[in-house]
């Protein structure tokens, strides 16, 4: 918690303490801690002098501001129509079997979380996914095994 407090103080210095600083501050926390804990949201509310409900209400609106605990790497597989047509289901099934988790879950070592997401804007190269901020396109089960192999062996 001490770390979180420090992080929020730094972010508030960088972005300011006005209401319009809320999104950049919340994004800064997610970048470091992978999600927004109850404590971090309470602290942000205090620093910006707004109600905690406002902070939670805003955070929960946006899909990249996770309020549930996430792993170090958040995997977001695109579920839009064209990615679906190109074999999204098979890709998901492969990831589930490689990581041994289902959609919405996090691996026990807290390394990966698996989510589905709406359009990633990579429709001409589907199926596509993001792992944190990096994108991967034209996925095949073989590619999936290779990509996650590299992450698991800490080569990325």
């Amino acid at each position, binding site marked *: 918690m001490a770390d979180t407090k420090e992080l929020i103080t730094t972010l508030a210095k960088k972005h300011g303490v*006005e209401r319009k600083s809320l999104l950049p501050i919340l994004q800064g926390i997610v970048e470091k801690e992978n999600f927004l804990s109850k404590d971090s949201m309470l602290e942000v509310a205090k620093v910006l002098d707004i109600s905690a409900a406002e902070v939670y209400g805003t955070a929960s609106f946006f*899909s990249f501001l996770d309020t549930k605990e996430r792993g170090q790497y958040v995997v977001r597989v695109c579920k*839009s129509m064209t990615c679906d*047509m190109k074999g999204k289901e098979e890709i998901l099934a492969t990831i589930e079997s490689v990581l041994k988790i289902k959609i919405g879950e996090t691996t026990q070592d807290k390394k990966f979380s698996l989510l589905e997401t*709406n359009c990633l804007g*990579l*429709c*001409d190269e589907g199926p596509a996914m993001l792992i944190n901020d990096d994108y991967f396109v034209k996925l095949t089960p073989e590619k999936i095994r290779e990509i996650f192999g590299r992450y698991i062996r800490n080569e990325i």
Partner: protein
Amino acid sequence: MTNKPKKVDIIFSPYSVAPYKILKDTMKRTKEEIIAELISSGLRGRGGAGFPTGMKWKFAAEQKSSVKYVICNADEGEPGTFKDRKLLVEVPRKVISGMAICAWVTGATEGFIYLRREYKYLVNELQKEIDLFKVHSKEVGLNFNLQIFLGAGAYVCGEETALLESMEGKRGEPRNKPPYPIQDGFLGKPTVVNNVETFASASMVCRIGATEYKKFGTADQRGSKLFSISGDSPKEGVFELELGMSVEAFAAEFGDGDTKAVQVGGVAGFCVPRKDFAKAIIGDGNTTGGSTMIFNSSRSMYKVLHNYLDFYAEESCGQCTPCRIGCQQLLKGIEAVKKGEKPAEYLDQLLKLSESMRLTSKCGLGQSVTNSFSSIVTNFREEMIY
């Protein structure tokens, strides 16, 4: 008779000039001239709503305020569209020049590129481009402080007032209009919000002139238009084409020979079935976001519609009841018909519901659900039932 879609080469045309030359040249002319040129070009907003760009800039220029904003809407969330990403990667200078020219003619001193969170990997390169712009804008004496604002993942934030709400640190819920952002935008100040392609097109009008620009397109929709093409097509990608082509010509050029339906204008647009290919003209009454998804005979249109509705139900901001509840009911409704829990006639009630959503929803999201819903349910009714 199927004419080939006419390819245009304006936005992506390579030309070797010093960076920000369009901006420098434009600033040698008067602001009134530029606005008149834009109005005469017939350029309309490229995000989908289609408001005349020159008029928007003119209204913004007329606002009396010491602080004004220019925002580039790069929250491209429409399933099937990726043209803005391509613009920001390949011709960012044309986009930034458009923003800078807008700032100059309207008197804005602050600007943002509102980049969707899904495109965070573009930030570094884009920032380098902004830094370069800063050097050049100083040279010409333009006072315009441009920065990137990163979104946080919400389709509805592509709606300009929802975008502003999110920039102000709130839930991205669309505001009532009027007042329009042009009067009362970011932090209550006059704000021009335009799509990425609109800014790029505006700088092209400044470069080639209105007369040349309006040679392209239809009476209603001048100039070139970028299309994001995906689905059952051997030519997926972004293409710069002239508006006014028939879906038949489009499918002949981009389809795989077995095209059964073309979704024009993304999930918010219309699904055109094979029998209507010849009479449907892209850009004539159709929405023009530029997303076109192609489906061949192997696709289940029930699955397509289900996917769209699932998307809508998740992305509705929840502010108004017809949209919040309507999206969920449409989804449950088609599932019930498919399972045989409801008779086929139930589809007609769902059509009525989607029509009331169009009439009573507050923003374009809820209002446009009926476009894809009714075009798929009416044209592929059999597939919804069996």
